């Protein structure tokens, strides 16, 4: 049951990315181009997603277990540190360079797009790099 649910959630999420326009880097960059010809669509993506999520998390905060009976874990960290800010800066810079963030890149790769495959391969190398830096400490 858990596996089925994870599969369906992944599917719905991917359909949402495709329908919303997030899988089109040109559209993403159009949103990030605040001082040029600006496409506000992505504000609607976030607005719709956060609105639905808000009610779900309000319910989730009151529960210790999920509706399928497993553990329900919400992040506990409230630390705002250098890692969070520098990491987000690097991510945002990469997002602005190509217009891909992780979800849309994976979906586009799965649809057979060569550019997305290159991006995802580099992203995986970046994640491996992170693990190596963490372990060398």
């Amino acid at each position, binding site marked *: 049951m*858990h596996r089925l649910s*994870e*599969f*369906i*959630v*992944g599917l719905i*999420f*991917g359909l*949402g990315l*495709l*329908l919303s*326009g*997030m899988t*089109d880097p*040109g559209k993403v960059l159009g949103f*990030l181009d*605040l*001082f*040029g010809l600006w*496409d*506000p669509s992505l504000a609607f*993506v*976030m607005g*719709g*997603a*956060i*609105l*639905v*999520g*808000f009610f*779900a*998390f309000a319910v989730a*905060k009151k529960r210790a277990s*999920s509706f*399928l009976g497993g*553990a329900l874990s*919400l*992040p506990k960290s409230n630390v*705002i540190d250098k890692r969070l800010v*520098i*990491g*987000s800066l*690097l991510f*945002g*810079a990469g997002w*602005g*360079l*190509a217009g*891909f*963030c*992780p979800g849309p890149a*994976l*979906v586009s790769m*799965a649809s057979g797009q060569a*550019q997305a495959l290159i991006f995802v391969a*580099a992203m995986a190398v*970046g*994640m491996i790099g*992170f*693990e190596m830096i963490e372990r060398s400490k």
Partner: protein
Amino acid sequence: MTIDWSHFTPWASLSGGILLGLASALFILLNGRILGISGILGGLIPPKRHDTIWRLAFLAGLFSSPWIYKALAPASLLTAPRIDAGVLLLIVAGLLVGLGTRYGSGCTSGHGVCGLARLSPRSLIATLTFMAAGFAVVFIARHLL
């Protein structure tokens, strides 16, 4: 600021956003997990015992989505993506996104959707930061260089 009306898709984007919210809602309520793509993927690098199958099940669903979308969506919603970045730019961007999302513990989904929806101050800072960086990079690339 000039609005790009020709590319503006409020209804498709709002509907897509609602699906993203629905997926995030189902994931926390049914599976008890935060739907964050960089975290789900990053947890596979390297794979850990008893913490891999659920990630693969999610990714299998995600990877099926473009094929099901192509089969179901009307032609008006099947616009070809515009990708201007060349190979070198894609590589640099991918490295930054991979490293940055792991360092900052999240991306647009984990911080931008789930984090803001659960009113996490940490995610608000992360989202404002990566948005600002994205705005700045596009401003530099399109208007200064």
